[in-house]
């Protein structure tokens, strides 16, 4: 005799044996739970399935409560939400682990590095490339030039050196190209919406790629003769061969993008017309202006903006330099400038930087290679005057500096050593102390005081309804390519949401994270990073040939096998993190003592339990007891110290047949079959 009741207005029919949960599930109504599994007796531990029934004073656990005829059940009431959210917040307050690896979390574009490194390790290069394309296009290019924040965060450095994540990315992209099986963009059916993108650099191209995937028509306008932006006009050929860039841009264009090059905003196209003609406009015009140094003599002949210098090179010019060239600045653009100067034949190339090497923002490898190529670094010096004869530069006066107290950024502030200066004779100066946006043609109301375009950091909307902005031109100003790409990726999502009439905001999901120290990896066998083969300093000093050859396949496999797999293996199936994000919880609310147990109990040869990820739903031991009939696992201790443990003498381990039912039943990543790393090591 069945009964009928409603859950959130949905009619549900229940049989006498049904609970609210089982009948709801059959009716297609999802009630959250971590501890229910129909193979085991009802347990009632997690408290997520609580529901409120009209006229019933207490909240009911849907997993055990029997529905009654005419029940009016609510899944969301203030009481239910509070109790459920609190349960999730409490669970996360004692859940130690890493949902995702530090590499991914530190990548501005949240590229799933662990995943594609793993795919490379397993020889699945096409999958690896697809994984990268989920985050952004242009992997072979970015893999070559990215200063790789992922590697900065990589925990392998606590063993010896980080994984060579960026080069692996380039390897995978090159490999599928070489195999004649490059990535192809899959687009949703056309939506009929049209988006104009101003600027065809990394941000504009990334946005074009994603918007095409969403099914929108895309037109790119770029002032330069070719697409690529700073990747083409800011990064020298020896670091990024333009053939690689061309091939990767073509993959995007093959998805069907209309392109207008040599078209500058404000000159060739009108901003207002653009936003009237298109459903949405994305401004991704970059930051192309060299920042002036504001020292006397900047207007002398022979003084160039660093980025202007590189742009000319990119356009095919070969600017003439004198024998002695000084580059001012310590970033990657400064490195590109000085190394280009070497290649153009300058005899003496100086890098003038007001702090020390330790504070240089440029990538270490760039500094090293510049040194190898003969560049002289003049640290703790700051230009205070350029001077010359007949309007032509002949030398510069440097103020000698020393490091003082740390500033807001934590770096020690350089302060002048009173009265100590130095003069050097030079023919050219390349100023590479920063880049600004050139927003000619953009309505002045959209600009910040710094001359960048003001936009919301979560929605990428500007002050005008259908106008968005991303990349170097936005608030923060110029950054590295992957930051611009990351903004474009989110901006494309926001534009898509906008065009579809959804909430525009790009939501940042919550991830569980933990801190690790080198001590945690003391037992990890050491295996150094693969060396990237390439030209010797002598071979590369007088030409623009690509300096790296790329990893061989053997190297790539070895390198990929070094990954520690920090991110949780269960992330995509983990119900805890899914609910945590779905119910909009505040995971820090009940921060307190957390378990961090050193030993992870070994259940069997192929099963490891991580009690710090365990939510004590009891499913593993209940399945083992009630379904498998082994009772190999058990609960130990009580209260906060409760733990699931196979705490038994070693010989008993043979009782476990490794049926893996406990692993499958676990709603989080607490039960794990032996990690893929070890399996692959066995295969190799």
């Amino acid at each position, binding site marked *: 005799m069945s009964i009928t009741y409603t859950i959130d207005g949905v009619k549900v029919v229940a049989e006498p044996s049904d609970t609210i949960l089982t009948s709801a599930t059959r009716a297609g109504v999802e009630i959250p739970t971590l501890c229910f599994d129909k193979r085991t007796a009802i*347990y009632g*531990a*997690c*408290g997520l399935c609580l529901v409120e029934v009209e006229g019933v004073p207490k909240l009911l*656990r849907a997993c055990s409560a029997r529905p009654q005829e005419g029940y009016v059940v609510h899944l969301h009431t203030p009481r239910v939400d*509070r109790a459920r*959210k609190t*349960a999730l917040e409490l669970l996360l307050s004692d859940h130690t682990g890493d949902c995702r690896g530090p590499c991914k979390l530190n990548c501005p574009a949240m590229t799933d590095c662990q995943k594609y490194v793993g795919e490379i390790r397993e020889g699945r290069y096409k999958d690896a490339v697809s994984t990268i394309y989920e985050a952004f296009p242009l992997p072979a290019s970015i893999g070559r030039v990215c200063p790789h924040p992922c590697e900065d965060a990589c925990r392998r450095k606590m063993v010896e050196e980080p994984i060579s994540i960026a080069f692996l990315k380039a390897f995978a992209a090159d490999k599928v190209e070489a195999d004649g099986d490059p990535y192809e963009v899959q687009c949703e059916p056309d939506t009929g919406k049209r988006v104009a993108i101003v600027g065809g650099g990394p941000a504009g191209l990334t946005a074009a790629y994603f918007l095409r995937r969403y099914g929108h028509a895309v037109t790119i306008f770029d002032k330069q003769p070719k697409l690529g932006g700073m990747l083409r006009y800011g990064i020298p050929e020896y670091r990024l061969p333009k053939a690689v860039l061309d091939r990767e841009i073509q993959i995007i264009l093959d998805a069907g993008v209309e392109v207008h090059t040599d078209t500058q905003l404000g000159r060739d196209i009108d901003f207002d017309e653009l936003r009237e003609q298109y459903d949405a406009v994305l401004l991704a015009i970059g930051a192309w202006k060299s920042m002036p140094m504001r020292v006397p003599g900047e207007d002398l002949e022979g003084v160039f903006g660093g980025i202007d210098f590189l742009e000319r090179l990119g356009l095919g010019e070969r600017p003439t330099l004198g024998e002695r060239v000084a580059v001012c600045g310590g970033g990657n653009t400064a490195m590109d400038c000085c190394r280009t100067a070497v290649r153009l034949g300058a005899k003496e190339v100086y890098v003038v930087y007001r702090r020390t090497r330790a504070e240089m923002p440029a990538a270490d490898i760039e500094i090293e290679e510049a040194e190898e190529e003969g560049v002289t670094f003049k640290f703790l010096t700051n230009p205070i005057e350029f001077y010359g004869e007949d309007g032509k530069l002949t030398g510069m006066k440097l103020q000698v500096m020393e490091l003082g107290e740390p500033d807001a950024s934590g770096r020690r502030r350089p302060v002048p050593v009173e009265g100590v200066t130095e003069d050097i004779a030079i023919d050219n100066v390349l100023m590479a102390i920063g880049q600004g946006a050139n927003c000619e043609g953009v309505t002045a109301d959209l600009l910040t005081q710094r001359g960048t375009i003001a936009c919301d950091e979560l929605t990428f909307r500007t002050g005008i309804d259908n106008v968005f902005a991303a990349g170097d031109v936005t608030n923060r100003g110029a950054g590295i390519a992957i930051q611009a790409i990351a903004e474009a990726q989110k901006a494309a999502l926001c534009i898509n949401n906008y065009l579809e009439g959804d909430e525009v905001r790009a939501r940042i999901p919550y991830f569980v994270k933990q801190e690790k120290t080198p001590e945690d990896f003391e037992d990890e066998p050491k295996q150094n990073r693969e060396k990237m083969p390439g030209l010797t300093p002598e071979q590369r000093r007088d030409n623009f040939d690509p300096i790296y050859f790329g990893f061989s396949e053997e190297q790539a496999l070895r390198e990929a096998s070094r990954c520690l797999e920090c991110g949780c293996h269960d992330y995509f199936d983990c119900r805890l993190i899914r609910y945590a994000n779905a119910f909009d919880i505040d995971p820090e609310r009940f921060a307190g003592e957390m378990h961090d147990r050193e030993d992870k109990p070994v259940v069997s040869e192929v099963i490891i339990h991580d009690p710090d990820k365990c939510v*004590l739903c009891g499913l593993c031991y209940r399945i083992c007891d009630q379904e498998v009939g082994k009772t190999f696992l058990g609960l130990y201790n009580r209260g906060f110290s409760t733990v699931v443990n196979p705490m038994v003498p070693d010989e008993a381990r043979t009782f476990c047949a490794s049926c893996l039912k406990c692993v499958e039943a676990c709603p989080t990543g607490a039960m794990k079959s032996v990690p893929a790393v070890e399996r692959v090591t066995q295969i190799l």
Partner: protein
Amino acid sequence: MRIIVGEGSCGLAAGAGAVHTQLEALIAQDNPRGVQLGITGCIGMCFLEPIVDVYEDDGTLHRLVRVQAKDAQTIYDAVMGGNLELLGKLAITPEDEQFLSKQTRVALRNCGIIDPESIDDYLAHGGYQAITKILETGMSQEDVIQQIDVAGLRGRGGAGFSTAFKWRAARDSQGEQKYLICNADEGDPGAFMDRAVIEGDPHSLIEGMLIGAYSIGASEAIVYVRAEYPLAIIRLRKAIEDATARGYLGEHICGSDFSCTLRIKAGAGAFVCGEETALIESLEGKRGMPRLKPPFPAQAGYWLKPSNINNVETYANVAWIVSHGGEAFAAMGTENSKGTKVFALSGKIARGGLVEVPMGTTLREVIFDIGGGIRSGKEFKAVQLGGPSGGCVPASKLDTVIDYNELAATGAIMGSGGMVVMDETTCMVSMARFFLDFTAKESCGKCVHCRLGTKRMLEILDRIVAGKGEQGDIEKLEDLCYAIKDGALCGLGQTAPNPVLTTIRYFRDELEAHIDEHRCPAGECRDLISYSIDKTVCVGCTACARQCPVGAISGERKSPHEIDPALCIKCGNCKTACRFGAVKVA
């Protein structure tokens, strides 16, 4: 003449054993008047222990209090010499007698009067007459339950569920085998009523259980006793043996068709086993983790058979109700709460012990008229009812009557009977922290809300008493409290927030003083207080300096002393040692 030594656990702890031994030795040497030496359980006047009752042959009672081994000779001489006036200096004062005279005893009717180890003494006091009456007059199960129903007996373990309702449910439940269980896992860390009943009158529990077993149709009864009550277990075991030997337990009780065995199961230390489904798990030899309800024990309890569980005090009332009739019981009390209730009165009370009063008595009457108010002339501040599941009732609510509903309205609960009195030197925040520390330790760990919720509440309270509370902590506590009440699986978790909620409700200012001003108004929280010596009061006796374990007190003899705050560990020894009240806490 009879000399009866009160030998409950606290009497023994106070030295009753030595008194007994001495008296026994003296009487063994020479007993010209044929004096009988006996024992009894706890009379409930714990503050006067050890207690020796001397009964003249005409029944006249001379109650001697705070008796020490050295007094044995005096008692012996007085009794043997027939000169009972000699006992005057040991005699109870009329004032202290009020402690008993203002009580009404039903559950405790025999405690401290009969010899708990003698079934004959129980029989002599009307014992086993109720079960005999039922079996001999052929009262039906419903007849008995009807009397319990008329009596309006509600569970004395705390929740106050109707006993008759539970019995009917268990009786109506289908099943050949049914069980009747007594919850003697007295877990409230401030209550000892059940212990006193088992130690002082075990047969009344057995008789009550027999009546219950008869009413629901159980042939097996089990008492689940705390392992921390060794004396109770010994006396109950003897009582079971004696009752079995006399035919009150076993096959064909009193020659009837009714058969019932009774056994003891010792608990192993888990507060949560006071929750009936956890208790059943424990009886089955498992971890004491609560089961989900439904099914209720009346349908599927011990070994999934219909089972009924009541606590000791509930059963202790049953024989009385059957003998005197339900109406007599219902004549006492309030509309919602009938009969009497036993409380274990302790804390900063002048006269602490066991108190049994009719429902409807005010808290003020219990604390001040019976308990004599606060000792050492301090101000009453609050009374804690219901232990870790209850709350603190402030002075403004002292006229609340003892009644399940009235007490629940204060935010506390009736509870099992713990009644701990606090004065102005008790910090209410520390008190709340104390209970959360208890529940967090006792949480079985099964459900999220209790396992982690109590832990986090404790952490918040920890930081508040350490002066590290944060703005918003009170609100965070409150929010957590309500979520736990709604989300926890069993009674332990659902009621764990009560001590915190009543503290927020009545003593918010004290919480705020800790958080906002880093001050403990009661002067109890160590991290927030400092000790100093009032130079105008100190006489330089050096007592404090001698007691200081860290040498933080300096000063010449006969001149004022001084405490070095840098060294002081705030142990309080100096304050205890000072006879002049010169040590100040701020």
